[in-house]
């Protein structure tokens, strides 16, 4: 890569640094493009004091300008300000604390205060740095930052927000680094910066080449220096927007990639916990402690609030010890509750609709009410954490999306000052919301403190659906009113078991409360605020309201959290199924009706794309059908078209015991407009993965609550999408966006996929399902034992060599 500084880099030594940013860029999408509008002005940042070049961006200047945002006339809050903005604004005040270093070896180093759990942010962030630094990707080291409390709300990975919130700060820091290297080279060569150019880690005047390595020391500053810089214009991008494979791909396929339980920490022996049969129960006492301590390999046994912890030479010996434990348990938090009782309570708490059902004769009403079962957010890597707690300090290793909060909680449970708790963030084996909470790290710290030895804690698979984080059960009720062929109102009432937001999003709302007040969030609770910041139905449906109620009676009753999205997959399924019903009532085609009603051009373009590419309306055999749906969130949108096969010979495929087959999605076409695309190859992967989640949510994956216990205990009970339900034909179309800011990708395809599958299923079977997933009513497995709480490890594996 070669770039002449005269094209895109200017120094403004005399500009007042407090100059106001330019106004809104009319070319940008929507009114919510708060970061994008900064794109064409200069930015300020710092060169920090040090022996080599260290730089940081300062985005707090831009933030001060946003409080004047007008109250929108548009009916829905996310069109002006959404959850992405909230997370981004929360990160801005501390952006200057995130530094990029150019080492004397010429390599760029960046400790990223976000967590890689498979979404590809290390790769995409390396690309962003490469773009502004003019440095090859293989000379850039992006690592995961340990917990840094000074970052406050700027170390939370969630809401598909990473690239949106870090894109500009990372670019500014990189651009400053390059500018400083150019300045140092100009002094050495006795010339001006504008006669120099950078390429591949070298500054050159066309005759002499100076490597970044040779300049890093000279470019360093003795004092902290405030500078300004301009960013490379988008039309000159050479790295951003090109497909790049994951930087850890080789490590992943050779077994070298290390996850938490793969780490070797001296003395940290395998540790597991014997957990109560009831959801959120607790131990009263272990009756056979000395017998357990005598078991092979066992070194320590302690009682902690969540169960009985055992440490042994191998995890297998921990499992054996757990199965031998005789424990008296205290009750759980929902002992008399089952799916049906929880659902009945939710139904009773549904907020009323405003538009009455019994309207004059000319009006028609479409009324729907859907239920969504509990689901487990667990990743394939179960909760795992290494803890070494000493009397005066502690060190933790774990996959954590909010490591600062984990650090605070660990300090609290160990009685140590927060600065004596070092929290190392390890790449996670998936998250999907699972690692927003520090349950595993806090539990490991408690155990290590009690045992007085280092521990490598791992949850058993059975622990995850039974005691781990769940996506809450919910109902979603919709009412659409049609007068003279027009939809005059669309109301949605979502009612959910309490979602736990104690992972940091709640704190963001508190800290920005004054700014959120004018847009209408004043007085709403955390959950209702998050709901309002994420829900947007981009249709012209007259009076449109979407409201959430999370009844107080469920508070702290269930262990809950997000699951590759918060509310949107459920609300999207409910709304899009209802829209299909409205179209039917009006005698209109579901695709054409949506195109008439959609008010946003980006969404329309995505929908048109999938209809064209997926041949919407083609003749389908009886028992099969197409379905189509859209979702708008994360500064972008997706449209999905699927074809489903619900014929008996498909539904009843027999692939062996405890194998749920059911209907099969045979084809999926996804169109995504996520704004500026950093890495199209990574974006396509996120769309494919989101589709698999959408298929599972609608067709197969759920948890059953029975008398305060969750029945599921492993992947032969919890039916996440498997190869036999993967569509053979999956297309992803990335739309060239009008927006210049990168949106979110990780969760973007889940809601629209789940909805498209639900719509297709309803059309194929001519029956609108009322309960999701559609197979929830049937328990197609024999529940594993609750006492002991983990299944025995089989010994017949050699019979199944293949």
């Amino acid at each position, binding site marked *: 890569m070669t770039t002449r500084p005269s094209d895109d880099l200017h120094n403004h030594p005399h500009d007042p640094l407090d100059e106001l940013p330019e106004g809104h860029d009319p070319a940008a999408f929507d009114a919510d493009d708060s970061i994008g509008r900064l794109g064409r002005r200069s930015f300020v940042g710092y060169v920090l004091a040090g022996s080599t070049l260290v730089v940081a961006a300062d985005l707090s200047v831009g933030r001060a300008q946003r409080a004047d945002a007008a109250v929108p006339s548009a009916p829905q809050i996310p069109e002006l300000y959404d959850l992405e903005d909230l997370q981004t604004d929360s990160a801005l005040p501390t952006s200057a604390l995130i530094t990029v270093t150019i080492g004397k070896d010429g390599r760029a180093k960046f400790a990223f205060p976000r967590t890689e759990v498979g979404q590809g942010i290390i790769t995409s962030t390396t690309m962003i740095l490469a773009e502004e630094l003019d440095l090859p990707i293989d000379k850039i080291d992006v690592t995961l930052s340990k917990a840094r409390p000074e970052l406050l709300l700027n170390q939370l990975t969630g809401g598909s927000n990473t690239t949106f919130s870090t894109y500009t700060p990372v670019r500014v820091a990189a651009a400053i680094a390059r500018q400083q290297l150019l300045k140092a080279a100009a002094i050495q060569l006795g010339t001006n910066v504008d006669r120099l150019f950078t390429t591949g880690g070298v500054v050159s005047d066309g005759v002499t080449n100076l490597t970044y390595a040779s300049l890093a020391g000279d470019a360093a500053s003795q004092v902290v220096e405030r500078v300004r810089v301009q960013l490379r214009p988008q039309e000159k991008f050479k790295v951003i927007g090109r497909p790049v494979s994951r930087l850890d791909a080789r490590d992943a396929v050779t077994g070298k990639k290390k996850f938490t339980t793969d780490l070797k920490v001296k003395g940290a022996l395998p540790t597991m916990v014997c957990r109560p049969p009831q959801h959120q129960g607790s131990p009263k006492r272990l009756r056979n402690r000395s017998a357990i301590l005598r078991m092979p390999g066992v070194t320590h046994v302690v009682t902690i609030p969540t169960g009985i912890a055992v440490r042994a030479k191998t995890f*297998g010996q921990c499992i054996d010890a757990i199965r031998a434990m005789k424990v008296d348990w205290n009750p759980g938090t929902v002992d008399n509750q089952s799916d049906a009782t929880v659902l009945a309570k939710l139904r009773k708490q549904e907020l009323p609709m405003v538009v009455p059902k019994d309207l004059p004769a000319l009006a028609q009403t479409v009324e729907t009410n859907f239920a969504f079962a509990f689901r487990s957010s667990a990743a394939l890597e179960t909760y795992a954490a290494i803890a070494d707690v000493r009397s005066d300090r502690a060190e933790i290793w774990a996959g954590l999306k909010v490591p600062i909060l984990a650090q605070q909680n660990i300090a609290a449970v160990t009685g140590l000052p927060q600065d004596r708790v070092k929290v190392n963030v390890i790449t996670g084996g998936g998250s999907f919301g699972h690692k927003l909470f520090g349950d595993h790290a806090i539990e490991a710290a408690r155990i290590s403190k009690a045992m007085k030895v280092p521990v490598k804690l791992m949850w058993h698979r059975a622990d995850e659906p039974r005691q781990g984080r769940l996506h809450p059960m919910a109902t979603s009720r919709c009412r659409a009113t049609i007068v003279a062929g027009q939809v005059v109102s669309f109301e949605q009432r979502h009612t959910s078991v309490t979602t736990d937001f104690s992972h940091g999003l709640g704190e963001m709302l508190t800290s920005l409360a004054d700014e959120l007040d004018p847009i209408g969030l004043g007085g709403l609770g955390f959950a209702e605020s998050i709901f309002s910041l994420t829900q947007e139905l981009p249709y012209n449906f007259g009076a449109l309201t979407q409201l959430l109620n999370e009844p107080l009676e469920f508070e702290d009753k269930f262990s809950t959290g997000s699951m590759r999205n918060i509310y949107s997959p459920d609300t999207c399924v409910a709304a899009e199924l209802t829209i299909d019903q409205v179209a039917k009532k009006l005698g209109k085609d579901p695709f054409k009706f949506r195109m008439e009603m959609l008010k946003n051009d980006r969404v329309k373009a995505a929908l048109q794309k999938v209809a064209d590419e997926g041949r919407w309306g083609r003749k389908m055999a009886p028992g099969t059908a197409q379905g189509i749906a859209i979702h708008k969130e994360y500064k972008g949108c997706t449209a999905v078209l699927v074809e489903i096969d619900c014929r008996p010979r498909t539904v009843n495929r027999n692939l062996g015991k405890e194998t749920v087959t059911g209907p099969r999605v045979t084809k999926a076409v996804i169109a995504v407009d996520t704004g500026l695309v950093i890495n199209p190859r990574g974006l396509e992967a996120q769309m494919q993965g989101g589709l698999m989640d959408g298929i599972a949510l609608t067709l197969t994956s759920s948890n059953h609550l029975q008398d305060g216990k969750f029945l599921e205990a492993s992947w032969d009970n919890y039916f996440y999408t498997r190869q036999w339900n993967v569509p053979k034909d999956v297309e992803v179309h990335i739309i060239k966006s009008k927006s210049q800011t990168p949106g979110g990708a990780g969760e973007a395809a889940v809601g629209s996929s789940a909805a498209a599958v639900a719509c297709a299923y309803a059309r194929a079977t001519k029956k609108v399902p009322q309960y999701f997933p559609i197979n929830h009513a049937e328990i197609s497995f024999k529940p594993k034992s609750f006492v002991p709480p983990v299944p025995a490890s089989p010994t017949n594996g050699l019979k199944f060599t293949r």
Partner: protein
Amino acid sequence: MPKQTFILNGKTVTVNVRDDVRVLWVLRDILGVTGPKYGCGINVCKACTSHINGKAFNPCSVKVGDLKKKDRITTIEGLDETWPGPGLHPMQQAWIDRDVAQCGYCQPGQIMEAVALVKRVRRQGREIRDSDLDKIRNICRCGTYVRIREAIEQGARKMR
């Protein structure tokens, strides 16, 4: 404590461990070979899939005492050594070319399953069909299944 001897990734190893410890924990907790992953411990998720004498098996469900001295265990770490050409095994290369891995946790097991599958159908004198891919039980919670299918087809073409 009994001595357990078997061949691991081409080298004979001997470990002092009780007969009933499952091979997965011998590999991971005692020998420090961490390519095979834990995902369920009951032979369901297939994240630990490795090879015994060239066929796929799940070490979470085999007692180390059931291994014989001449049993050749291959984990993802030793897969490239089983292929005569230089560099990675063609299936690993296919995984890189298709950029399959997201979090990467299940992928060692997926690759070991794929290699065994190709060898199995070749023993049956045929090529891989869609119905073979449908029967793969390995879970990928990131949902990389589409690229896994593409990579297996590429890897199979190169495994000749």
